[in-house]
């Protein structure tokens, strides 16, 4: 599985692996993003195949593109928290081709390369991710580097990771029992200052 994924993405993502010298697009004047210099070779776990409603054209083929901000209908009644009201769908989705996303420079982006959309705003995080300081690696340290896409972990519409129940805490060895300590929260420096002022006033 990993191997095939690596192979597939290596094809679609060769641009990032070896940054080619690309001329600026004549129409838009933008230079497409070609990756970071000195970043080690990597490929990204594809995302498109995991999407529930893909291909989007199943429905959208029969609908007129409508950019107006409105209440979303099933099956898209997601709670759209990303950006806290700053964006609408077409900040990331391509209006005239629902099979694709759109980067900040207007370039169409495949769902498999969705990190290019995220990286448009979260540049520093994207760089960390590309170099391995953020995100999760699928393969081991000896294998070709295959890393998960941003959207594998973060819901693009509500990207903050939800709190979760932790697994069981540590125990003590057979035959012994733990007594919980009486914890007194040590006041923070600013909290100490507050109580001192109160004392002063008294």
């Amino acid at each position, binding site marked *: 599985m990993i191997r095939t994924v690596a192979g597939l993405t290596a094809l679609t993502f060769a641009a990032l692996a070896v940054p080619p010298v690309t001329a600026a697009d004549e129409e838009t004047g933008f230079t497409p993003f070609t990756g970071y210099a000195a970043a080690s070779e990597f490929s990204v776990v594809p995302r498109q195949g995991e999407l529930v409603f893909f291909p989007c054209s199943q429905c959208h083929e029969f609908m007129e593109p409508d950019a107006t901000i409105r209440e979303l209908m099933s099956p898209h009644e997601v709670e759209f928290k990303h950006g806290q009201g700053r964006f609408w769908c077409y900040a990331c989705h391509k209006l005239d081709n629902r099979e694709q996303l759109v980067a900040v420079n207007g370039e169409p982006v495949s769902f498999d390369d969705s990190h290019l959309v995220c990286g448009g705003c979260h540049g520093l995080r994207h760089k960390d991710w590309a170099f391995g300081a953020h995100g999760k690696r699928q393969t081991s340290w000896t294998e070709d580097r295959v890393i998960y896409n941003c959207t594998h972990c973060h819901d693009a519409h509500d990207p903050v990771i939800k709190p979760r129940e932790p697994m069981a805490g540590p125990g*003590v*060895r057979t035959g*012994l029992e733990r007594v919980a300590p009486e914890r007194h929260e040590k006041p923070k420096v600013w909290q100490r200052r507050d109580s001192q002022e109160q004392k002063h006033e008294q």
Partner: protein
Amino acid sequence: MQSLFRFLLDGAREALRGGSMYRLWCIGLLVVAAFGTLQYIEQLRHGLMVTGMSDQVSWGFYIANFAFLVGIAAAAVLLVIPAYAFHRSDVKEVVLLGEGMAVAAVTMAILFVIVDLGRPDRLWHMIPYIGRFNFPGSLLAWDVVVLNVYLLLNLCIPFYILYSRYRGHAPSTRAYFPFVVLAMFWAISIHAVTAFLFSANSGRPFWHTSLLAPRFIASAFASGPALIILTLQVLRRVTAYPVKQSVIDMLAVIMMIAMQINVFFVIAELFTDFYNEGAHAASIHYLFLGMHGFDALRNWIWIALLMNLVAMVILTVNPWRREMRLLNLACVLGFVGIWIEKGMGLVIPGYIPTPLGEIFEYFPTGTEFAIALAIWAIGLLMFTVMAKVAIAVETGRMRAPPPSHDLAVNPEG
């Protein structure tokens, strides 16, 4: 060779002979030792889970006793120093008893380490050449070396002296004096190395202080004489062995000075840790004041400190020190006080809180007490037997039968 065999046989005979009190004492000790041995077999069967130790506090009552007993062993040879350095003939007479005490104490110390091992069946891994002995890297390896050499020294010197006397020769000073000098320095080294064993651990701020070795020596030179003073008085009462009062007076003065220094060191430690209370003070804070509702050792350490202070005051006031009853009280207080302070009071707080800040208290179990008691009983029994034989030889009661040709000239024969 034959006379050596006879000496050992006579010694064994002497050890078995004795009044009803002597026999009762020995049998009592044997019973305690036997009970503890049974408990140790239990520990071997189930593993160290029968103790109160945990990953958090991984050394406990056994190592606490070990640290204390190495001090007793070191201080027992203390008698040797004035005897030979200042040519005190009165002290020379009890030197052998001191060395006997050293032998008993070192044996006990070694036993305490052995019962603490998770795999005593692999003890041979420590033997150089067939095992792998991490010397000079490991301080524990150093400790094994110094303790065993010390044991050997303190077995050989008295053995040579007693064996010579037994055969009616005067022991040749030339033959054994170099070893006596060696033993004097070695006594300091065993205790310094034992202190380094603890202070080497930079991850345990409570132990990681250069004051630990001096403190160990000072407390050893306070608790050792305390035990010797008490023992000499017992021996004076139950045996015919002449113990001069001047020896006891001298020991009391040594104990006074050592106890003063010891108390001063404790105060120095308290000041350094508490004046600016950083992370290094967490253990001592737990020990003396308790922490987050845990204070298992707090009362003990204050009692110990009080005992040491009272002992120091009694020893310091001249008329009080000369009053035997008060002196004995000071000895008991000093001995018990230092046993607490340097045993549990030193080993346990080193682990509380753990290097990751967890507080998990330690309480010794009945098994640990029984095994520890057994080791003390074995030590006492060893000392009793050795002292009995030594006194028999020294007082001339135990002598090699003279060669047949001079039977006539020997008035006793």
